[in-house]
């Protein structure tokens, strides 16, 4: 039916324009990150000249030797671990409390959980700073952790609540019916089911905390997480390609948990 093939856009076939535009949009989204990867290998160290004059692994060596980078990396990992742990506990508690109960004010409480991540980061950051100043706490490691944990709670909460809601209520009743008390039901029936959600939520929270800059700038004081190190380099760079190397590493470190979390939370058939 070659001769009858329509070239006009219909609702069964997209127009050429749509296809091209969609492809362009997707490329637009991805290209910049590949640029960074490219620049991590350039030999030119003073400008951002394109095309790069040559390729080298030299900057990777330089970056690995820099102690300030390792210090910041260590701090970021510690902060992310602590914040994730805190978020896991608080988020899971909240998920169990709210999964199936209906009561007045439930919507407001859910809104409260979402607020730290919904309002612009600068507000959260400034508010936390104002709070610290009022109470007289000095910014440092624990204030960073506190800030991160606050908006990571909702990430864990969302993941766990979604999984909890998919557990048929009859399972909990069956467990109780057979003689299990609350803690036992949690341990034997609910925990195995939400394990993947906990893992996914935890990894997303970790990635978010590791990468966080907006709120952290307010709550860090003199501490320097890796993003803060990076931010300073943007203004007073020592070796530009080293910055690029760090950028590549950061991308990878946040990339992997995200992908894993995605695989863990994909809908499965045996639910």
């Amino acid at each position, binding site marked *: 039916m070659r001769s009858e093939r329509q070239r006009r856009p219909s609702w069964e076939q997209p127009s050429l324009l749509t296809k091209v535009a969609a492809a362009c949009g997707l490329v637009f989204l991805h290209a910049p990150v590949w640029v960074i990867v490219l620049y991590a290998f350039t030999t030119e160290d003073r400008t951002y000249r394109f095309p790069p004059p040559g390729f080298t692994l030299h900057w990777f060596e330089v970056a690995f030797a820099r102690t300030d980078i390792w210090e910041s990396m260590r701090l970021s990992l510690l902060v992310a671990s602590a914040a994730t742990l805190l978020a896991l506990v608080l988020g899971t508690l909240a998920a169990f409390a709210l999964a199936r109960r209906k009561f007045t004010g439930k919507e407001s409480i859910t809104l409260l959980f979402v607020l730290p991540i919904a309002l612009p980061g600068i507000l959260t950051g400034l508010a936390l700073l104002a709070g610290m100043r009022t109470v007289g706490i000095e910014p440092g490691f624990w204030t960073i952790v506190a800030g991160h944990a606050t908006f990571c709670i909702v990430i864990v909460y969302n993941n766990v609540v979604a999984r909890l809601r998919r557990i*048929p209520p*009859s*399972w909990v*009743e*069956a*467990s*109780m*019916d*057979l*003689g*299990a*008390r609350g803690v*036992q039901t949690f341990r*034997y*029936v609910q925990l*195995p*089911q939400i394990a993947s959600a906990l893992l996914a939520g935890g990894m997303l929270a970790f990635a978010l905390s590791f990468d966080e800059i907006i709120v952290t700038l307010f709550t860090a004081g003199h501490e320097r997480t890796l993003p803060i190190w990076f931010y300073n380099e943007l203004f007073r760079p020592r070796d530009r390609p080293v910055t690029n190397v760090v950028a590549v590493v950061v991308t990878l470190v946040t990339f992997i948990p995200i992908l894993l979390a995605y695989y863990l939370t994909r809908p499965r058939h*045996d639910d």
Partner: protein
Amino acid sequence: MLPAIELRALRRAFGPIVALDSVSLTIAPGEFFALLGPSGSGKTTCLRLIAGFDQPDSGTILLDGDDVTSTPPFARDVNTVFQDYALFPHMTVADNVAYGLRVRGVAAAERARRAREMLDLVRLGEFGTRRPHELSGGQRQRVALARALINHPKVLLLDEPLGALDLKLREEMQAELKGLQQRLGITFVFVTHDQDEALSMADRVAVFSNGRIEQLDTPRELYNRPQTAFVARFVGSANVVQGETAQRLGGPGRAFAIRPELIDVLPGTAAAPAGHVQCSGEVLDALYHGASSRMRVQVDAQTILAVDQAELRGATSAMPAVGALVRLAWHPDHAVPLRD
């Protein structure tokens, strides 16, 4: 002897909807008891109250003479087979069955032994290492049974146990459940909306409607002597004759029920046997069902009677045509007076 279960004036309302309206009943030990009724009649609520998954607004629940109204489910000597079986997918069949022992701290070796025992009882002895999703519906149900029985509860509750099974399997399971109950001697209480099931398996049946028990009797009594129009219609679909027609045909101004198979069609101009009640009407439809045929006859403006005629051997007479006039008769003793 103390009743296995006693319910006293149980009441449970969900907002404006009254699920159970002051229900009382007694179930003897070792009885196979059925809670029968259409959806929304309160039978499932009643079961859940006995199990402990819900609390009544008022009233008392006694198990073996002990008041368990505010006892949580894990402390009651009652176990439940759920409608969706509620098997834990992340555990093997054996672990599922042994769950009740595990949460009571029984050692692993003992657990394995007793789980195997229960699985043998339900003829699934070799399936211990399988996972629930590998089993068929009927097999899953037997696992659920085994799991619920491992603690040797005094009472076993079953929530619409056969609803998800196809006809053949259902009939098999009915026999199996009945046999199991007789062997174990445990009190079984099951909920169903299928009157066939209730009649064939239960020793006694409580018929629920709108949160109340309409009649509590043996299956035979329910079938032959329904006390209300609801029971007459729900259990065995009897004809219910009310009002003026009832006066004309039945006697002292009360409604009555008459089973379709107890109404005779008078052939030709034959006279009715002495003492029989007589009436006539127009055939609305007539359907052949193999072992019998069912006709619906419009006797007067408010009354349509269903008439079942068994196919007699060698009978060649065709069914009356639609619109034909037929004469019906029945013995007055077969008309069962109803309360309303």
